[in-house]
């Protein structure tokens, strides 16, 4: 079991400020690093942005970022200044919002404007660095390795910022370093498409953007299918938590509530995302064994746990979940690696069954002591107490 310290979003905020500052350097340094695009080229960029703006691209478990970032990156390498790029991005988003008849999203605009501003600055800075280092003539080929390199770095940073900053009221689920694992595929595809467009520009002119976006579309289709399947998998497990409720074995919503509470406790303890996911799955399925047992018979917790584990094992890919569910019937026998997940299930289940009434600080010192003796892992009980104090559970 790996436990990390509580995350913080300040590194991401710092990166966001740096990216924004990059755009401002365009004017400080003279803004002559790259050739200026023609009006026709700007129009092509605008059309490409309108077409790609509504399409998000995401890895499973993370928010989507707009495919238009690849167009923004291509525009930046092409030499569009930050203000013009931001104007195009905003216009494109407003047009798309009008077409879709919905109010433009402030958080979506924030992401787009920040990306355009920062990437344009990064391209300018990169091209200047290339000129200083190698005496290159970036405008001759239409692309400088330096400009493209910094834009690529920027395209890796933007999805991480989206993932780890509280943009649009969304609570970030992970810190910046951890977020890289959930964004690298999207970032790589966006960066490759941007490079791609830049490399083909001498041969294809503005068509290079169209050609570069098509492989990105293939990536988007593949990742979207994957994300939908991953979501369906988790939602199905949550739906299955309702099976024992159908014949009155547990109170309505017990599995879902225990799952939600377990997620908060896992986050509070800073568990690895894979372990946290299995904790939530186990919480949803911890009563599943009741569908296998005789409904009228009085059954002990260990019987329910063992029956549930045998059902879950049938699914083939949930072995750790099956083990956690099995052990929650006899937590004292948990191996070290599973002590924390098992304790979370036992503690959250006990709290939901007790029905804390949703009051803050619901766990008194006596209650904590009692739970610690039941659960056997004090840090889990204390984390649960903190969670309950900050966001009380709904009454069962």
């Amino acid at each position, binding site marked *: 079991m790996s436990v990390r310290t509580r995350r913080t979003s300040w590194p991401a905020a710092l990166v966001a400020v740096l990216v924004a500052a990059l755009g401002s350097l365009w004017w400080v340094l003279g803004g002559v690093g790259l050739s200026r695009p023609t009006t026709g080229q700007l129009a092509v960029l605008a059309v490409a942005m309108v077409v790609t703006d509504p399409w998000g691209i995401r890895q499973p478990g993370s928010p989507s970022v707009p495919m238009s970032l690849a167009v923004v990156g291509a525009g930046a390498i092409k030499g569009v200044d930050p203000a013009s790029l931001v104007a195009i991005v905003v216009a494109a988003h407003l047009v798309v919002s009008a077409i879709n008849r919905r109010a433009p999203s402030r958080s979506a605009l924030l992401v787009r404007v920040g990306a355009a501003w920062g990437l344009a600055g990064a391209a300018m800075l990169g091209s200047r660095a290339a000129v200083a280092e190698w005496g290159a003539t970036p405008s001759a080929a239409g692309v400088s390795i330096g400009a493209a390199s910094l834009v690529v770095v920027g395209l890796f940073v933007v999805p991480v910022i989206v993932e780890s900053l509280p943009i649009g009221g969304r609570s970030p689920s992970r810190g910046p370093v951890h977020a890289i694992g959930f964004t690298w595929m999207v970032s790589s595809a966006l960066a490759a498409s941007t*490079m*791609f467009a830049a*490399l083909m520009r001498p041969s294809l002119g503005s068509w290079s953007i169209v050609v570069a976006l098509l*492989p990105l579309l293939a990536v988007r289709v593949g990742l979207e299918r994957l994300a*939908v399947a991953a979501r369906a998998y988790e939602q199905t497990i949550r739906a299955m938590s*309702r*099976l024992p409720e159908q014949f009155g074995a547990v109170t309505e919503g017990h599995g879902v509530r225990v799952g939600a509470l377990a997620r908060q406790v896992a986050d509070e303890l800073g568990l690895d995302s894979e372990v946290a996911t299995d904790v939530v799955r186990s919480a949803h399925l911890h009563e599943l064994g009741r569908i296998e047992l005789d409904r009228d018979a009085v059954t002990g917790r260990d019987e329910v746990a063992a029956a549930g584990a045998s059902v879950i094992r049938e699914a083939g890919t949930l072995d750790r979940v099956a083990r956690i569910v099995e052990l929650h019937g006899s937590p004292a026998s948990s191996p070290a690696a599973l002590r924390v997940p098992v304790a979370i299930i036992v503690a959250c289940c006990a709290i939901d069954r007790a029905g804390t009434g949703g009051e803050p600080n619901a766990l008194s010192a006596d209650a904590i002591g009692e739970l610690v003796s039941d659960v056997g892992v004090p840090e889990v009980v204390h984390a649960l107490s903190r969670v309950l104090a900050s966001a009380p559970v709904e009454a069962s």
Partner: protein
Amino acid sequence: MPGQTRLLTYVAATGVAGAGVTVWVLPHVRLVAALATVAAVLVAEWFSTRIRDGVEVSLTNIVVLVAIMTVGFEVAVLAWVGVVPVVVARASDRVFMRVVFNAGQCAISAFAAGAAYTAFLTGVSGVFPDVRTLAAAGLAALAYSVTNLALVSGVVAVSSPDGFLATLLPALRLLVLQVPYVAIAFAAAILLEQQPWALVVLAVPVVIARHAMLAFQRLDEAYDRLVRSFVKTIEIKDRYTRGHSERVATLAVLVAEELGVGYEQRRLTRYAALLHDIGKIGVSRCVINKAGPLDADEFEQMKQHPGIGADILHDIDFLAPAIDIVRSHHERLDGRGYPDGLSAAQLSRIVRIVTAADAFDAMTSTRSYRRAMEVAAAITELRRCADTQFDPQVVEALAVVAERVAWAPTRDFANEATMATGDAPSAGVITPRDDVPRDALR
């Protein structure tokens, strides 16, 4: 002509045609370019990705297009040399026949693509790499894919009951997948000529898309196992309906296929059919296993199960279209079904398929209250109830499927069944009786 002879003739003709174009292009081939192309095809074939039943995605067409644009279509025709080792390594039977066919169809397809590319470019006076070559590459990809699919459809048509068009037309819908490939091939050709090192950049989206496809495939299989394991767990306590949902799912998908339903809808049909009775978890086991007609209260209990099932599944976004099917699988065309008494116009084709498959399996399975019916008798019963309860078109498709797969009644529990008198009631679907007929409830 017997089937085997027709197959051999077709494969031989394909092989001879492939050999013919190979001999024709051979004098114009540059050895180094040919070796590089063959090596690239070998790698592309080896890492081909199976994305679902019968659909395999390989990057060979990209290699062929790049070869056509950069070193001439004569070299592209030789791509088959890279295909053969992979076919030999993976074929489990009839290796020689598979080699001949695959080599032949690869050579012919590459020739067709090359001819389309050259003819178009000559017509518009285009020169690689201007944008007209992009259009020519698109046309070449179309020619390659259509030729390839037509030849494969031909071999399916001569070796199975499936017709040529019945195989070709659904496959042609996948042509849209070629669009990104054309762009990738075009870009690869440009980079190969101008900045070969940058091919690494091009590989990134290709590798990620492949990774996503493989991950999706694994997750899809895991999801399938997850759903099946839960359904099995629920059914296991009710010995007479054990395996019912799996059988209904199998049958419903086959009927959907027979009716030309597309892949995504068939996938939905499968899950809806697997989960259609999940709401029975909320019905007393005494009612479900009762050996005899249900009284009014018991029937009311039983009528709750479609709604309970829909409630259990209600927040699974992916299954949203299937929830209506679960809720409506006891509705009837004449509006006398339950729980909502929907009219025919409100019942989708998938609902009609699952409803008929469910009734058919219920009739051809032994239940606690009667023995299994013969398949022919069950079909007759479905036909009798067509237009009022079941969709006639679906019933006829089901009849075709049942005959084709030689569907057999499920009598696993016949000897255990608590049919005290030995002359159990017949399994009429809607036969009017004093008590509620159980097959109307299923």
